[in-house]
């Protein structure tokens, strides 16, 4: 606590009778003006003449003297704000402790927990961000299937991106799509019920269709809405409110959601996986932001990390198949019958949240089995996630590799291809 500027508080002065409160003091200033100066005086924020005038007045005026003393003491209570960062992992510990003592009647589903935790962690990072930091440049990087791609935005732009893409999930839960024509941020409440589609709440009419599909189109649409706005902190509240609403709705909907699917335009995901996908994105972009403003940022909790790695591993066979169809990967060595054991890659993810996954190589429908292992790839969990985020080119992934080179290449390229803007 820095010492209060200025000297000792003045001693309580005697109060000689006979001084009218309205009488001008020694500096020619009257009681009212001198009184108004007390705060500035206590903070040593007036001129030398004013200070002298106030102090002379204090020997005459008991009320002012009493207040001056009180305000001077109050100055002693000011101190620099601690830059103590709340341990981001404390949230999980606190909530778990609470839920053990009083089990919730309406729990957050396990598969939504990583999204809940990651959005809270990112929000904590954003909390104390200064205006300038919201405008800090961020380079988003991903692997477009063939090569690395990148796009420049700002910290606020990243949050807008998360908001716009989370908005793919929201309507599945009965929440408004923030990019739906006519439903500006703030939702349908901003238009009257009878209002036709023609009247967009957004500036300009840029969404002629019903729903803007796909993460990229949605992000571009949101960024284009108001190039000024997405560079400000305003995006945070939209994103945060939507995230809280998603968690809330999914808690109430739990039993009924197993069959829900979220369309990403070119592909879709079961709702449960979409929540994991959004958690993964949130974490990776939080790292982008943390880098941009030079803050430290750690990995998710081990249990959550495991779910995120699992999602990526489960998406690999389908992605390999997609790459083959697109001519980006060589055709399968043999055509495996669905359900029959086929050639398998053993993916070993090390570190907290890691584990073993067996990836069928010939077709997504084939069964993977340790007996059919033709290759083994071992890498650290965080490294795997960086690969799946497209932050590490597949040919550079520092993986322990053993076995069929082509199979390993297919899997590493497929992992990188999971990434997108």
């Amino acid at each position: 606590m820095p010492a209060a500027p200025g000297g000792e508080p003045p001693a309580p002065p005697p109060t000689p009778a006979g001084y009218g409160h309205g009488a001008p003091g020694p500096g020619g200033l009257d009681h009212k003006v001198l009184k108004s100066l007390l705060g500035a005086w206590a903070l040593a924020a007036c001129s030398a003449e004013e200070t002298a005038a106030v102090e002379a007045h204090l020997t005459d005026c008991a009320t002012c003297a009493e207040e001056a003393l009180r305000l001077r003491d109050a100055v002693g209570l000011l101190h620099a704000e601690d830059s103590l960062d709340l341990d981001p992992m404390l949230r999980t510990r606190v909530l778990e402790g609470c839920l053990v003592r009083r089990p919730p009647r309406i729990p957050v589903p396990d598969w939504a927990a990583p999204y809940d935790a990651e959005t809270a962690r990112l929000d904590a990072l954003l909390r104390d961000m200064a205006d300038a930091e919201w405008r800090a440049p961020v380079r988003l990087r991903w692997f477009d299937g063939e090569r690395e791609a990148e796009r420049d935005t700002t910290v606020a732009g990243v949050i807008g991106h998360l908001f716009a893409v989370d908005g793919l999930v929201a309507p599945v839960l009965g929440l408004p799509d923030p990019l739906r024509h006519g439903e500006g941020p703030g939702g349908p409440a901003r238009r009257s019920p009878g209002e036709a589609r023609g009247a967009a709440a957004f500036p300009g009419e840029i969404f002629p269709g019903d729903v803007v599909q796909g993460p990229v189109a949605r992000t571009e649409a949101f960024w284009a809405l108001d190039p000024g706005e997405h560079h400000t902190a305003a995006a945070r509240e939209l994103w945060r409110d939507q995230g809280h609403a998603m968690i809330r709705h999914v808690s109430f909907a739990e039993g009924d959601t197993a069959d829900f699917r979220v369309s990403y335009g070119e592909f879709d995901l079961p709702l449960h996986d979409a929540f994991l996908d959004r958690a993964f994105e949130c974490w990776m972009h939080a790292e982008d932001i943390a880098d941009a403003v030079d803050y430290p940022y750690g990995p998710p909790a081990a249990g959550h990390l495991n779910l995120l790695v699992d999602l990526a591993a489960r998406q690999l066979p389908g992605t390999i198949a997609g790459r083959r169809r697109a001519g980006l990967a060589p055709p399968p060595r043999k055509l495996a019958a669905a359900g029959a054991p086929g050639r398998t890659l053993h993916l070993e993810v090390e570190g907290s949240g890691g584990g073993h996954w067996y990836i069928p190589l010939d077709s997504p429908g084939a069964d993977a089995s340790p007996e059919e292992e033709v290759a083994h790839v071992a890498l650290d969990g965080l490294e795997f996630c960086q690969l799946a985020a497209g932050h590490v080119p597949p040919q550079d992934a520092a993986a322990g590799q053993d076995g069929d080179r082509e199979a390993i290449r297919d899997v590493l390229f497929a992992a990188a291809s999971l990434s997108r803007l």
Partner: protein
Amino acid sequence: MANDTSPRWDRKMQQRLARGEAAALGELYDRFASLVHSLAHRVLDDDEAADAATREVFSYVWENPHAFDPREGPMRSWIAALTQRIATGRLRRRQRGHGPYSPEQAELVEEKVRAASTAARADYIVTSMPASLRAALELAYFQRRDYRQTAERLGVTEDEARRRLRLGLQLLSSAMTQPTAPPPPEVDGAGSSDGAGSSGGGAGSSGGVGLSHGLGSAHGGVGTAHGLERRQ
């Protein structure tokens, strides 16, 4: 985020907590954890102890959502008072843990607890006052500007700058007004009871009333401050 939540938000949150909605607990944490932790840290001056106090505060709210009475003031000040109560309880126990205990030492402990409470109340007041007052104090105190420079930076008249500095300090000085009652019963016992789900009881509600009283001075001060902000 430093401002009070709306009365509607408070009531809704209370209902959701009472209903046992885990998502509400998460939102409550997101809203208040940083306030709770910093106040606890101000009192206890130790990371781990502040973490433990934070756990206790949220446990108490989760297990006793009905202890909050919206008529007594906003949830934010209730939680701040609860935090202070729990943190000072922990400080008192820690001090007493240091061996034999004479009346003089007891008085010393109480003095420490009082100082810590005042500091925490002051922090709470600073985070709760209107941004315009906080900005004026920030310029005059931390950046050592005189009130004329402060006025210029804020784009207000010199009169207004003087007014803000004085009002800000007046609010802050209310932190030094001790509650007139003797140290109130500690709620940490209630917070760490094993009676999971035992919400509502007499202890809970009387605790709620006592807590609001504990922060009475800050309450009034902040109320005034909000009135001012609305006028601007």
